[in-house]
């Protein structure tokens, strides 16, 4: 059982080392000639007019809320799907009962214009 975790640990350690090594070599080899004009954030040649640390459109927030609901739903689908044939019609109907309220919610959101961009 633990073997599976060993494999993932090994690949994780190798992956992190590889990527960090690339960053480290880059920091060692790259030149350093800093001056203020070079370090200004890119703004098509203008001075930065507004700071990016400000409010942004609420739509992104609404997508995030929708994501939480539907991703949790998706997670419930995984184990159900894996044992689906053993559950038979009982499992089918149970999942239908679980999905209908969500479908109603999605339809409501859709009608209200929450999915418009």
């Amino acid at each position: 059982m633990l073997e599976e975790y060993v494999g993932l640990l090994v690949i994780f350690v190798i992956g992190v080392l590889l990527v960090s090594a690339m960053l480290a070599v880059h920091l060692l080899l790259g030149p350093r000639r800093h001056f203020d004009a070079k370090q200004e954030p890119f703004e098509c040649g203008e001075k930065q007019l507004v700071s990016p640390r400000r409010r942004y459109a609420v739509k992104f927030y609404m997508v995030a809320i929708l994501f939480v609901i539907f991703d949790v739903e998706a997670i419930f689908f995984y184990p159900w799907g894996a044992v689906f044939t053993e559950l038979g019609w009982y499992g089918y109907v149970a999942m239908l009962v679980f999905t209908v309220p969500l479908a109603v919610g999605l339809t409501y959101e859709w009608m209200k214009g929450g999915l418009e961009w």
Partner: protein
Amino acid sequence: MPVEVIVKTLFILIVVIGALAPVMTWTERKQSAVMQDRIGANRADLGGITVLGLLHPLADVVKLLTKEDVVPLGANRIMHLLAPLIAAVPAVIAYGVIPFAGVYTFGQDTISMVVSNADWGLLYIFAIGSIATYGTVMAGWSSNSNWSLLGAMRASAQMISYEVTMGLSVVGIFMVFGTLQLQTMAIEQDATFRILGFLEYLIPGLQLPAFLSAFPFVLPKWGIFLQPLGFLMFLATIMAENKRPPFDVPEGESEIIAGYFTEYSGMRFGLFFMAEFIEVVVIAGLVTTLFLGGWTIPWVSTADFIGVVTPALGEGVATGLCVIVHFLMFMTKVVVMIWLQMSLRWGLPRFRYDHVMDLCWKGILPLSIANIFVTGALLLLLGDAS
């Protein structure tokens, strides 16, 4: 045991990162050049040898490593440094659960050709995939640039939206194969089914003639034949998740410079770039395993293959040959999927952002839920009739 794991890990990383990903950067340039009637990369040379421009990936690495590392004023330095790391590591480690060949018996030992044979393999891929979102959002937010922020906002909304549909569009596959373990799924696909086999189940007492169980009337039991709609939806969503064209609005060069990595230079930029290319390979591997039978040879099962070859060569050699053939089969399918993604990239124009979001929430999401219940009803009605 750990030795075996390390060997398999190094092998797959060398194949994916050392060979496939760099060659892909070259292929992508060459393919775009051919599609746009140009010559493409052919200048990098090493003592007069150019090999069709194949040295360009090498030149890229040298160049990226020796560039200055510019951090914009007012940026959050720690986040700015961590972001490429968090974006690239998930791409590298996702290959840990994708099987590149089957399960073989050599005398006493049974070897499964996958780094980790976890039974939650697919969940791991999705979990790792969502971590990559943090990388893009951190990159965009920490750069203190308006373009980066716009790109990061677009990327975050797009990635989390498509994560939902990506999960839902493959549930049909779990239901058909009854597992989340990728190696088991590949083994399940190492079989064939009769196209008309369901008739026997629907009409009791019907016996299909024998010729319907032979070559042209049986198909490999691949996910793409059992879940055709699931395949299309999964391919579209996973390409959107990787932010590749035609879904590359978070980068959208003509609108927001380079999106979330506008303020990155040198190898930090290179890591975002590399992550994208490695993810293309991961996507190809994942789609292959779920829908194209993974390492299996179409119409020829592992037992058949070993059975035919053993009398001529002996069992050990036959099994070894089988490993090689299966691995080449897997790589062929992966290369075909990579080619498909690249052709889509250069063949389609970029979507508008509202179209991308509409496709996800109004198109694929309802369709994938419908697909789950239609698949379920068919599975229960027709049973394992094939």
